[in-house]
């Protein structure tokens, strides 16, 4: 998604992945098709976008507002604003890049409104995605329960991935980390697209099985934190 893809090495004549004019592949394609469906009137498709980014947006808002309830209220506002502005989104950038900007501005405004000080010059050192090497630093005062939960989630997912058979792990890594399309992965792994789809699904299934345990069975609980 919003990753730098600068070719390594000084040879600037080397071609890069992702031609400048090609339709979005990999990570962006799913979001873009959802956006188009919302723009065409399918409100349910927006629900899927919310479900996809709620964790990231709430986390982002919590950089400004420490109270979890407050943060969720403001995060709600972010998604509503984005929905209202969606007709103007033309796909020039990734959906999340666009959503990220709305989230930052909304959070800053909310912070100023609450603190009654101008938002001024906050040090916003991150772009839409935290850079991997910063992941270990705890930047916000989460509640202890919240922190413990996300740690557990992280450990569970990472553990499940390392336990995967190699072909499943490769497939899901190429998909989630490299943002490659099924077609590209099929080429890379030298197998049919259908096999790619199946491997990714089975990888997710295996990880999700462990993840559901974290949420305590994960079936039918109304307070389930999903």
């Amino acid at each position, binding site marked *: 998604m*919003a*990753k*730098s*893809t*600068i*070719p*390594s*090495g*000084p040879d*600037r*004549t*080397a*071609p*890069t992945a*992702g*031609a*400048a*004019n090609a339709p979005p592949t990999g990570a962006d394609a799913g979001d873009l098709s959802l956006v188009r469906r919302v723009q065409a009137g399918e409100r349910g498709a927006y629900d899927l976008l919310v479900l996809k980014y709620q964790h990231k947006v709430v986390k982002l808002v919590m950089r400004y507002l420490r109270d979890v309830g407050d943060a969720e209220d403001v995060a709600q506002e972010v998604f509503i604003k984005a929905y209202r*502005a969606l007709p*103007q*989104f*033309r796909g*020039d*950038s*990734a959906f999340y*890049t*666009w959503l*990220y*900007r709305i989230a*930052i*501005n909304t959070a*800053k405004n909310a912070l*100023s409104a609450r603190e009654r000080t*101008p*938002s*001024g*010059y*906050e*040090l*916003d050192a*991150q*772009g*839409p*995605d935290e*850079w*991997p*090497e910063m992941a270990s630093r705890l930047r916000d005062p989460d509640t202890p329960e919240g922190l413990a939960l996300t740690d557990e989630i992280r450990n569970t997912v990472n553990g499940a991935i390392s336990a995967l058979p190699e072909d499943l792990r490769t497939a899901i890594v190429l998909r989630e980390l490299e943002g490659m399309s099924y077609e590209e992965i099929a080429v890379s792994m030298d197998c049919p697209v259908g096999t790619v789809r199946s491997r990714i699904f089975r990888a997710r299934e295996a990880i999700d099985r462990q993840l559901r345990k974290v949420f305590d069975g994960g079936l039918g609980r109304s307070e389930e934190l999903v």
Partner: protein
Amino acid sequence: MARTEGHLLWLAGLLVAAAAAAAESPQSFIAQMDEALRNRNYQGVFVHEHGGQSETLRITHRVDNGQVSERIVSLDGSGREYIRRGSQITSYLPDQNLVVVDTTPDAGLLLSELRVPDLANSGQYRLRELAATRTSGRQARVIAVEPLDAMRYGYRLWIDEVSGMPLKTQLLSSRGEVVEQLIFTDLRLPAKIPDSELQPAVDAQGYRWLRRGVAAGTAVGIPADSAWVAAELPPGFRLTARSVQVLPGTSGPVTHLVYSDGLASVSVFVESAIGEPASGGVRQETLAVTRIGSTSAVSTTVQGHRVTAIGEVPPETVRAIASSLRAGAEPVGRGLPEMGPVAARPATGRNYPHP
């Protein structure tokens, strides 16, 4: 002959050695960055943060047979685009149903570059390399351009080790506050960029097209006895341009002075007499400064004339400069003698201090 050749070889060797030694200096990293910004094809998305606001923009930059084409598209829903071809900039403002066409005096890039020779000559900034770090998943050198006083802003640059592109750029106050920030969230350096990437996506049918009028910026003769200067300037600031223009919203010609310290520029506008009594008794410190992002603007009255100073400098600086304007005075104190009408921005072309 052999001796001359030997001498030349020795000299060449010295230059190479000097270049090699100098290649690792902060100056050379900034020079590399300028070169990358100017001469590479790149396309990316960056977040521009200033004055509490955040804007996401996509930039496409192509160099083709020496001809530079650029396009910046705002991704905030306004649909605004700025396209530069050579020295012409066309701004599409679909939310205003407006297109504005202008020419730039030089081939200024749409993205900032820091000109190393100016930095080196100004004596007002110290260049320092800080600990390298990873940003955007890339290894980056971190270069600090630190002002020696609080009258100007400094920079911090995260320069990609391999490509020389500035992955992150910050404009900082002397207190370390981030005044402005630019972060690339997506960056590619394609070998070729098709023409279609540099066309506007705006359908400008029925829009209003505006172009710089022939009349704007015409110099008008000024009576010698009313030459205005800033009598006291912060260290390092020199007069680099002077003109008299007629600008809308003012009555009579306006003197436009430009002071620069090599990196930052401050414009001073002196309007014709407005017939108001001199505003004696107003202390400089109480002048309110208006800020737009990193730009500070202040207005005051000196000897019956409205004086306005605008620049990408801290508020105290425009206050100090505006308040020091005098008519027909010779500069005193730390101000430096007026230079000839040199443009504040040097001509394009490679100006690197090293061969």
